């Protein structure tokens, strides 16, 4: 069946021309407002799209002397080497494992925190806790990593003092691959749960208090009210946040890992972003690093497109 709004094919170009003309006139009329867009547009052109010119070195044998354009094409040589390298697969696995664990623990933590905070009656205490929980978000990972190292130090750290007090031996957690992932996930949750809860607190503020009052009159307990009113009210936000997080699955967080890691834990703690940095900048293997980075970005793009599709579907279902 034909949509009543559908434009006959013959009229479409004319309509487009009209639209374009009208749009141009509109833009001219509000030119100063559009002018405000310029810095943002320039930023994206210069720093986001412009550098994409360099992607081609993933397919070249890049030499600094020759530059990007004059370096020789080598086709998929670097990608073949990448897929043949066991180190690459190890790094990819680490990336996925850390990312999934961060999602697993980092996603529900702010929700739980927001719900718990919402239950607090004392407003002053609520505000204080809220403010304190935001603080780690504003501290850079350079500083946070130093704090983590100090806290876990075998000789000075409070954790190992407790271990010793309990009769155990000090353990160097930061040189232990098995512990490193746990350290990464825990420190990530600690840094982000407070800030991440803002969006849920905003959603909670929008819940009609009458729902709680009605439930209370019907005899619902505090837990029942939480499970039957609070949590369902958060579903739409939870779904959107979750989907966005999945879309960035391969972006583990360079700052955090780079500042926390050391060569002793590369087998579990080296991720694509740090590996690319080391191969490219430190070891000067530019083309190979570009190939690894391009692979990472391509997978990330695919994930984003898939998630985008899911988001539309979710919207159709009312989320």
């Amino acid at each position, binding site marked *: 069946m034909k949509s009543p709004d559908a434009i006959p094919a013959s009229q479409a170009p004319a309509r487009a021309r009209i639209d374009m003309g009208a749009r141009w006139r509109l833009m001219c009329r509000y030119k100063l407002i559009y002018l405000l867009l310029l810095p943002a547009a320039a930023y994206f052109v210069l720093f986001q799209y412009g550098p994409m010119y360099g992607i081609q070195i993933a397919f070249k044998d890049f030499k600094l002397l020759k530059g990007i354009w004059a370096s020789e094409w080598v086709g998929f040589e670097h990608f073949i080497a990448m897929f043949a390298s066991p*180190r690459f697969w190890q790094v990819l696995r680490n990336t996925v494992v850390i990312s999934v664990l961060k999602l697993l623990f980092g996603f529900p933590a702010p929700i739980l925190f927001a719900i718990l905070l919402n239950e607090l009656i004392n407003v002053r205490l609520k505000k204080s806790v809220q403010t304190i929980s935001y603080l780690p978000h504003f501290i850079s990972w350079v500083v946070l990593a130093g704090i983590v190292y100090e806290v876990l130090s*075998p000789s000075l750290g409070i954790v190992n003092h407790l271990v010793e007090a309990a009769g155990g031996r000090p353990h160097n957690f*930061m040189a232990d691959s098995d512990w490193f992932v746990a350290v990464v996930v825990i420190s990530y949750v600690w840094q982000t749960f407070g800030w991440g809860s803002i969006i849920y607190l905003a959603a909670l503020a929008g819940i009609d208090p009458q729902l709680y009052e009605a439930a209370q009159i019907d005899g619902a307990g505090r837990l029942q009210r939480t499970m039957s009113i609070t949590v369902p009210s958060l579903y739409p936000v939870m779904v959107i946040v979750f989907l966005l997080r999945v879309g960035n699955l391969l972006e583990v967080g360079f700052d955090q890992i780079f500042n926390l890691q050391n*060569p002793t834990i590369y087998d579990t703690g*080296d991720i694509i972003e740090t590996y690319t940095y080391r191969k490219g900048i430190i*070891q*000067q293997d530019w083309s190979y690093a570009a190939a690894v980075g391009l692979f990472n970005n391509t997978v990330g793009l695919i994930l984003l497109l898939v998630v985008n599709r899911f988001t539309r579907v979710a919207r159709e279902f009312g989320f």
Partner: protein
Amino acid sequence: MRIWIAVIVAVAAAMSGHAAGETEAAAPGQLEISWHGVNPTGNPVQEGSIIEQAIEAQFPGVDLKPLPIDWSDQDQIALRIAAGDVPDFAYDIRRGMAGTSLRQLAEDGVIRSIERDWLSTHMPVYVSYVDTNDTGKAWPSTQVDGVQYAIPNVSAGNATGHILGIRDDWAAAVGFERPDSWTLADFEDLIRRLRNEDPDGNGNKDQYGYARWAQQGLASLGVASASFPNVFGAHGVRIATWDQNGDWSMISDGYREALKVLAAWWADDLIDPESFTVDRATWTAKWANHRLGVVERNWTWLRERAGAPINEIRKTMPDVSMIYLPQPEGPAGAHTSAYGAATLVGLFGKDASDEKVVKIMQILEWIETDPDRHWRSRVGPMGIFDPEVKYAERVSPTEIRRIGEFHNNEAYAKAGMYKFAMHNYRPIELWRTNIAGEVATVVEAGVAASLVDEGPWVEFSADVNKLRGDLSDIEVQFYVKAISGQIDIDAEWDAYVESWMANGGARMTEAAKQFIQNGTIME
């Protein structure tokens, strides 16, 4: 309105231009030379230092521009190279860049070639010292396919062994007397006593018998010569070297056995558990706070100087001295290892003109062939600190404090120390003439040490050499896990060797053997 916008834009442009330019432009007719030499860790040398002024006074018309970045921070220099901004002179910029070879820098066009004759013409004495002290690697390490790319380096100082040392008060406290010869079992007994018998008498079990010397930072853990060299030496292993057959030392049986010895000591709580993650400052603080027993390093670090391990103790305990120990005997005899004589070379950036290259050579010849200038470029100008005093007699606690006022990393940076020197260059002609007392003792101990052969000169193609990056990661992980008891060494050994081979080790081994046997480079 338009005028105001123009003014703002102009001011912003002027300010950004000022911020981008790190140094002022050279005066007309002056030869501006950008220079990237060593600096005290974390304290980049700024322009206008005392030593820079002395050089510029000697070479009128030269305007030295030291790069205001930390030489030990490989990230910074790597980013410079990535941007194509290479200084005219760079004291070996490959440090910390596992997998980056001279060949690669040359092929990538980061550095320029020089004429071999220029070295003989403009650095005749320097070259003669190199030839006298060369162990066979000085010249090959500066050439690519016969073309000269760098100033060679030799170091009789760095070629002396990493030796063991212990405080004499702690040795007495645990009833230890220096033996003329001893075994790894005897050494184990010493570090066990240091751990268990409370040598500082504070009533706490807070000393560790043995610790790995800390590198500059966590990122530069690289298991090089500073890694328990006497234990590996006793097993005939020199870390991270190819042997005469073209086999890599870190997959050898001796390496495996040495790891097992260290793992057993670790399991008995004799080795400091922070051995793999502390930086040098923390190591020094732990030593100064009476937490570490045996030290292990070459004489240039163990000798008396501000910041030397023994002087950190003497700040509060002036009568303490060091006892330098012989190498413990193990299955392969009593050996240790050293830095290697010729690993760090002088490079010329891609944009350095012939005139600049020649001038740089003349400057280095002037500095590095006169004993006095050689030392002052490293320990400071006369009047602040006299090298003759430093190397002639034991330094008193008062003197140490005085030295400390002038000799800290910040003061070093202001004076420009190390920056304009071929840092590790220490030919025997320059350093054996003016040493005495305890300094001589530690030097003699290092000279007397038996070294594990550092292996032949091996050269790889740039592509093959890049494999070292991943291999180094694999080696470091196994090394740490093995020693710290995270894995069963025997159970995991085959998988480790297999992984090493699969990640490029097999290709490198083949290339090493080919070079050693035929002298040809495998692509």
